[in-house]
C-alpha cells in the first residue's frame, strides 16, 4: 500500500505484469490525484511548449503561439530562448500542488514529479548543463529552499548556479501580464560561477512558465555570459 504524496490518502497500485515483476516505479500520487494532472502531449507550440489542444486556432501562427511570435519579433528578446518544454498544463490542480510546495513549504511533493520530469529531460534536453532559476536572498530565506533547485536535483546531474536574483519586488504571480512584459531592468545578474557557462548549452529549470518573462530574463544574462544557447524546462505551462 502507498500513501499519496499530495492528498495523503492510502491507495493500492494497480497490479500489472511490470508490477509483479518488480519493474514498475512505485507511484507517488493516488489514482484521483494522478488523473488531475493534464500531461502535455500531442501538438504544442514549437517554442514555449504550450499544448495546442487548449487554445483557439486564431492564436496560432504555423507551429507557434502568437505570444512566442511576439517575443521573437521583439529585437531585444529574439532568439534569447531556444525552446521551452513543460510537463503538465498549469490547471487548478497543478496550481494547488505547486502552491503547497512553494508557499506551504512542502518540499517532499517534488519527489512525486521525479519520474516524468526525468523522462522529459532525457527526451528533449539530454546533456545540457542544468541551471535552476534562483530566488532572491530574501525569498530564499523565507521559504527555506528554492523549488526550482529541488526540481533540478531530481534530474541527478551536476547543478550550476551562474545566476543571482537581485530585484525582489512584487511576486511574479501577483503581477499582470503587462507588468511582466514591461521589463525595465533585468531581475537577474551573473554570479561568481558565471564563467562555467561559456560555450555551453544551458537548460534552465523553473516551476512554471507563465508569460516566459522570467525565463527569458535569466536566459539573456546567460547568453551575455557566453552561453551557446539556452533552453528551459518547467513543470507547469
Amino acid at each position, binding site marked *: 500500500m502507498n*500513501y499519496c504524496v499530495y492528498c495523503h490518502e492510502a491507495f493500492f497500485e494497480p497490479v500489472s505484469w511490470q508490477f509483479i515483476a518488480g519493474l514498475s516505479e512505485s507511484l507517488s500520487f493516488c489514482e484521483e490525484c494522478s488523473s488531475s494532472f493534464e500531461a502535455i502531449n500531442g501538438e504544442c507550440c514549437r517554442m514555449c511548449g504550450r499544448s495546442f489542444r487548449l487554445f483557439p486556432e486564431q492564436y496560432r501562427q504555423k507551429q507557434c503561439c502568437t505570444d512566442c511570435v511576439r517575443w521573437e519579433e521583439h529585437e531585444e528578446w529574439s532568439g534569447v530562448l531556444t525552446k521551452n518544454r513543460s510537463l503538465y498544463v498549469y490547471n487548478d490542480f497543478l496550481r494547488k500542488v505547486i502552491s*503547497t510546495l512553494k508557499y506551504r513549504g512542502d518540499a517532499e511533493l517534488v519527489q512525486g514529479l521525479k519520474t516524468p520530469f526525468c523522462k522529459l529531460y532525457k527526451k528533449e534536453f539530454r546533456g545540457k548543463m542544468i541551471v535552476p532559476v534562483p530566488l532572491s536572498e530574501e525569498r530564499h530565506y523565507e*521559504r527555506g529552499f528554492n523549488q526550482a533547485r529541488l526540481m533540478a536535483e531530481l534530474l541527478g546531474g551536476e547543478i550550476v548556479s551562474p545566476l543571482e536574483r537581485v530585484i525582489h519586488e512584487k511576486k511574479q504571480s501577483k503581477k499582470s501580464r503587462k507588468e511582466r512584459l514591461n521589463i525595465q531592468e533585468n531581475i537577474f545578474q551573473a554570479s561568481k560561477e558565471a564563467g562555467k557557462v561559456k560555450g555551453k548549452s544551458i537548460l534552465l529549470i523553473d516551476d512554471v512558465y507563465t508569460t516566459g518573462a522570467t525565463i527569458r530574463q535569466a536566459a539573456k544574462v546567460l547568453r551575455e555570459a557566453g552561453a551557446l544557447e539556452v533552453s528551459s524546462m518547467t513543470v507547469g505551462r
Partner: protein
Amino acid sequence: MRFVSFFVDGKTRIAPESLAPHNHLFTASSFYNLPDFDQPLINEDFSYNPTLQAELSGKLLLLDELSLSLDEIQEHYNHGFIRYSKGIETKQGYDKCSRCGNSENRLFASFSCYRCKEPQCTYCRNCIMMGRISQCTPLVSWCGPELEWRDSNSELVWEGILSPEQLKASDTLVEKIGMKDKLLIWAVCGSGKTEVLFQGIEKALKDGQRVCIATPRTDVVLELLPRFRRIFPGITLSCLYGGSMDKLEGAQLILSTTHQLFRYREAFDLIIVDEVDAFPFSYDKTLAFAVQQAKKEEALIVYLSATPDRNMKQQAEDGKLPFVKIPKRYHGFPLPVPRFVWCGHWKKGLKRNKLPRYVMNWISRQMERNRQSFLFVPSVRMLDQIVPILKEVNAKIEGVHAEDPDRKVKVMRFRHGATPILVTTTILERGVTIPFTDVAVLGAEEEIFSESALVQISGRAGRSKDDPAGEVLFFHYGKTKAMVQAKRHIEQMNREAGL
C-alpha cells in the same frame, strides 16, 4: 533558523543569530542542534507588551505567526516572559511534531534548509497547512501573567425555553462547571444540544474561565458564530477556521474547527467538543491529542454527539464517562425513520449517464410537491457525474462538495430556497439545519456511509415542528449492516423518548 548560545552569570542563554551579543564569539547552529539552555527567570519589573500577551497566551506558535519584531520577541525571552522550544523532537530515533503530535514516519520529510544551512532539516507534513515546522523552527509560548477578562459582561441574552430533557442536561452541565471532569451529552439530531450549552457557558464565563467550542467542520463554526454573538453580546469572541480573517487575539470564548486547536496549549478551562464521533475527529488521533493539549490541567471536557462510537458508549455504560442523554427532539415529534429502496446496479447505469428510475421518480415527485431536498452521494467524482444529469431535469439543481470554492454561497442559496435539490457529499451530514427538507442517499451501501453518518444524514429531515415528518430514503444496491443499524438506532431513540 540559526541560533547562538552563550553564558550569562553561569546560565546558558540563546539568541537568534542576527541578534547575537557583539562581545562574544559563537558558532551559530540550527535551533535543533543547540545544547540544553536555561529559561531566564521572570523579571517582574519588565513591562511586557500586552499585544504579545493576547496573541500568545495559551498558545504554541511559530515566530512568523506573531506580529512583533524578532527584536521585541527576544527581549521578552531575555526577561523570562516567553519560552522557546523545539518544533520537532527526536526520541529514541523517532521524530515527533510538538505542535500536532504526529509521530508517523511517513509524515516526516526533509530538505536542504537555507535557514539553518543543514543538509537535512526534517519537517512535519501532517500540520504543514498551518505553517511549516521543521527541526530548526523554534516554537514560542507565553510564560508571563495569564489573560484576564474581569471587566467583560458575560450576561446571557436568550429567552428561549428548554424542554424538560434539555433542562436536565443543561443542569448537569452547570453543576460540573469548574470541576476537572468529563461529560458526554448524547443528544439526537434536532434535540437542540446547542441550547443545552448556554447556561453552562454563561457560568464558566462569569467565573472568568476561557471557553472553547471545537467542531470538526467549518460550516458548523459559521453557523454557530452569529448565534453566539447574539446571546453573549458583552464578551470577546473569536472564530477560527482555516482561512478565517476576523481573528480577535486573546478572546475569552473561541469557536474553532478542531484543527485550529493545534495552536493552543493549556488554554481552556472548559472545552466543548462537538460531533466527537465525526470524521475527521474520530479518524485522526492527532486531533484527540490537540484537545488534550489545548485544555488546562484542571479543565472540564464536554463531548457532544448524536452517535457516539462504540468505545465511548462502552465507557458511558461502564460508568467511566459521566453522560446525559436527550433522546427526544426539541419539538417532541419522533425522528423520521429511513426507508430502504433497492435500485439495482446504479453505478453501471451511471456509466451511461443514467440514474435509477426510482431516483428519477423521487426527484420529479419532489419538484412537483415543491419540497427541498438533499441528495447525498458517496464521492466527489460521482457528484460530478450525477449533477449534470439532474441539471437536465432542472437547471437550478446544484452540487456541492468540501473543496468547492463556492461552497458557502451554494449552501446559502439552498438555505434561502433558491435551490430545489442540493446534491452533496458527506460534508453537510452534520450540524447544518434547514427546515422543511427531505433527505435521500444514493448508494447507501457504500462504505463511507457508516452507521453514524447515516443517522446524521437522517437527522437532517423533519427539523421543524411545522414539518416534523420529513422523508428519509436510502437508495441502495444491497442492504449493509450500517444501514440496518442506523435504522435500528433511530427506532431505539424514538422508543426511549416514549414515542
